[in-house]
């Protein structure tokens, strides 16, 4: 059975913006699924409709077979959601926030208190249980939203950019936690801007753009399409023109900077060997865009963003 089945989903906002244009998607039960796409592609609208925060224009959505049109309560019972925007009651205590949410799903106070201890300990918030939501750091607020979403033990956990603004150490501990939840049988749908996150966690990926799924495959297959990366090299001495490096595409982007395209069949050693032979010294190097941006650009055939647009 599909954890999530979406058919011909359309959403047109009152201002005329068509966020979803006949979107179809299936997420198998037990999967760790990445939903990727550029800003404004329709990811948050899709999640909003699945979690009933946004009314759809037309189409069909089923959660573990329950239609959101005819069995909304059953569908909602299966879902836990961690939205992109912080949406906790800042004046309430951490413990109250999670137990109140559990009560909304029909858990008694005793059940909720026991479950709260488990969830808050798992997300390293137990020591802060008496503190108000506003006193938590950004990372803690994110973890609190995950704990809240897990209180009723959902079969499908939807995470919309859960690690945005979270430092790398906490991000990695959250990844570990999410892997464990997934291993215990919870299906997870993750939207993220960090390709590293999707690569690390997800087995399947769908890429959404302009309200449609433009790619749906195993993560490994999609990543193979990333066959080239662009590196920006800073040079010690200024150059008047782009140097000729046999087999590499090179362009001059400033007096002291060149861009080099390196395909999967090539390597950086060749670039440095050619530069050394030409007497050009490199003082630093960086990726022009992150890999996710490149992936989007390739799949959506868009012009690369300029630095000012990023």
């Amino acid at each position: 059975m599909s954890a999530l089945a979406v058919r011909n989903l359309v959403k047109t906002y009152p201002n005329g913006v068509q966020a979803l244009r006949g979107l179809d998607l299936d997420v198998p039960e037990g999967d760790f699924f990445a939903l990727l796409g550029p800003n404004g592609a329709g990811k948050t609208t899709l999640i909003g409709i699945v979690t009933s925060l946004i009314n759809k224009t037309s189409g069909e959505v089923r959660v573990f077979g329950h239609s959101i049109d005819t069995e909304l309560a059953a569908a909602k019972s299966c879902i836990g959601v961690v939205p992109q925007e912080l949406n906790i009651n800042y004046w309430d205590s951490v413990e109250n926030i999670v137990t109140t949410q559990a009560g909304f799903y029909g858990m008694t106070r005793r059940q909720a208190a026991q479950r709260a201890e488990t969830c808050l300990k798992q997300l390293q918030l137990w020591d802060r249980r008496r503190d108000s939501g506003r006193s938590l750091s950004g990372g803690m607020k994110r973890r609190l939203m995950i704990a809240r979403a897990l209180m009723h033990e959902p079969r499908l956990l939807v995470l919309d950019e859960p690690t945005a603004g979270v430092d790398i150490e906490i991000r990695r501990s959250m990844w570990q936690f999410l892997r464990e939840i997934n291993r215990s049988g919870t299906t997870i749908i993750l939207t993220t801007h960090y390709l590293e996150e999707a690569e690390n966690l997800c087995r399947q990926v769908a890429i959404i753009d302009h309200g449609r799924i433009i790619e749906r495959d195993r993560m490994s297959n999609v990543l193979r399409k990333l066959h080239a990366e662009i590196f920006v090299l800073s040079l010690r001495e200024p150059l008047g023109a782009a140097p000729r490096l046999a087999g590499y595409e090179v362009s001059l982007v400033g007096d002291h900077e060149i861009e080099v395209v390196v395909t999967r069949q090539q390597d950086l050693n060749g670039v440095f060997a050619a530069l050394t032979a030409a007497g050009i010294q490199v003082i630093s190097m960086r990726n022009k865009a992150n890999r996710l941006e490149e992936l989007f650009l390739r799949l959506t055939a868009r012009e690369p963003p300029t630095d000012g647009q990023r």
Partner: protein
Amino acid sequence: MSARTQAVALATLVRKECNRVFRIWLQTILPPAITTALYFLIFGNIIGRRVGQMGGVDYAQFIAPGLIMMQLITNSYGNVVSSFFSAKMQRHLEEMLVAPMANWVIVLGHTLGGVVRGLAVAAAVTVVALFFTRLQVANVLVTVSVIVLTAFVFSLGGLINAILAKNFDDVSIIPSFVLAPLSYLGGVFYSVALLPEFARQLSLLNPILYMVNAFRYGMLGVSDVDLGVAYAVILGFAAVLFAICLVMIGRGTGIRT
């Protein structure tokens, strides 16, 4: 969800609303008690002594039920507006919207929170009133049913306001420009029998007049309106406003995109 789980969800929401009311009692309970003390001091004692009797009782005694009702109305309305609108603005209303709670649970839970605030304020105001005048309860059933139903009606009104509100101006317009004038002109400080015929007939269009007078009847045994008509008005408003709230929450008006 089963009836039992809906009941748990309702109890959770009511508890959450009540916790809010009593956590910030300095903002929710105390101010109306102080305002009422000032009303009694000025209108009940200083001016009231010159007025003498109204409706067959001392003026301070006459205005006591009206003042209790006025604070009940303002606070039950204000509680739901404030709670629901801030939940909408801070987005933690989504906690309820993603949960499998029935629409009637969301409506009733918030409304009961307003009723609790209204009754808590009414109790505080009654205690204040006892320092200035002698109070009695002529008919317990009428007194209790009218005060609870009135708080229910205005809590529903507050919920509709909060659902439709898009900014903070929207939540202050109705209390300032509709509720306050209707309360002051609803027979709190005077008997409509004293008004010229045209003004008296106009006053009969004011629903608050029926609530104040029905409550006054419960406490003092005197009223400017027929008790049956007053109950019909209160119950009619309760039924219509509850239905409107259910339809709005069901459609996602003002709360879903």
